[in-house]
């Protein structure tokens, strides 16, 4: 897949988890404002970590298996997307388990409040 390898993996994550929203109805994307807000701390912490790791030479990225578009600090565009896609998938997984089992996640169910 060459330059599209990393990007394809990210798209794959979104495709694989899409049925949780579309079929199971977990309403994660439907709560997109909350989702964006919730992802902010993770995004900031991990992007700072990655920028430090790149600067310190802890890891490096293949030019041939990424789009090779580097943002300021040398971070590949896919790596930035990783820190949006992966947390969204984690939230989808949590909401799916919660919906199926009914187990407490520490906050009131949104479904009841929304009247659905």
């Amino acid at each position, binding site marked *: 897949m060459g330059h599209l390898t990393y990007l394809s993996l990210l798209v794959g994550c979104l495709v694989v988890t899409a049925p949780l929203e579309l079929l199971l109805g977990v309403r994660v994307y439907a709560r997109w404002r*909350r989702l964006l807000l919730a992802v902010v701390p993770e995004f900031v912490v991990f992007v700072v970590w990655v920028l430090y790791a790149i600067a310190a030479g802890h890891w490096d990225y293949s030019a041939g298996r990424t789009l090779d578009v580097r943002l300021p600090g040398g971070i590949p565009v896919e790596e930035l997307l990783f820190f949006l896609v992966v947390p969204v998938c*984690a*939230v989808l997984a949590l909401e799916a388990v919660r919906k199926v*089992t009914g*187990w407490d996640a520490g906050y009131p169910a949104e479904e009841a*409040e929304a009247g659905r």
Partner: protein
Amino acid sequence: MTYSQIAVAVLVAVLVVDLAVLRTRMVTRRVFWVAYAIVIVFQLLMNGVLTGLDVVTYDPAAIWGPRIAYAPVEDLLFGFSLVVLTLASWAAVNRRANTTRRRGLDTRTRRSSTR
């Protein structure tokens, strides 16, 4: 700091945020561990491809050395911290939003019931 040292430091910080700062206590909940069990399967798959195909390469001096599915074990700490921080934050945002909304509903109910 090496990758290993940062991974441990971030893990501790994230646990403090979950247990003491936001008090979402995600890591004490069954729903979290079942969700994490699902996430880690896909994480190992994705990480295995990323590291197995050398999309990402590591400085041997910055890691402990042992690898699981091609990826340094530190990646497991990295992934775990990412998931805990995200889900604790998601819980905190929903807790606040739903509590506020519930208060609003309560207020309306009370008002109409006194009239």
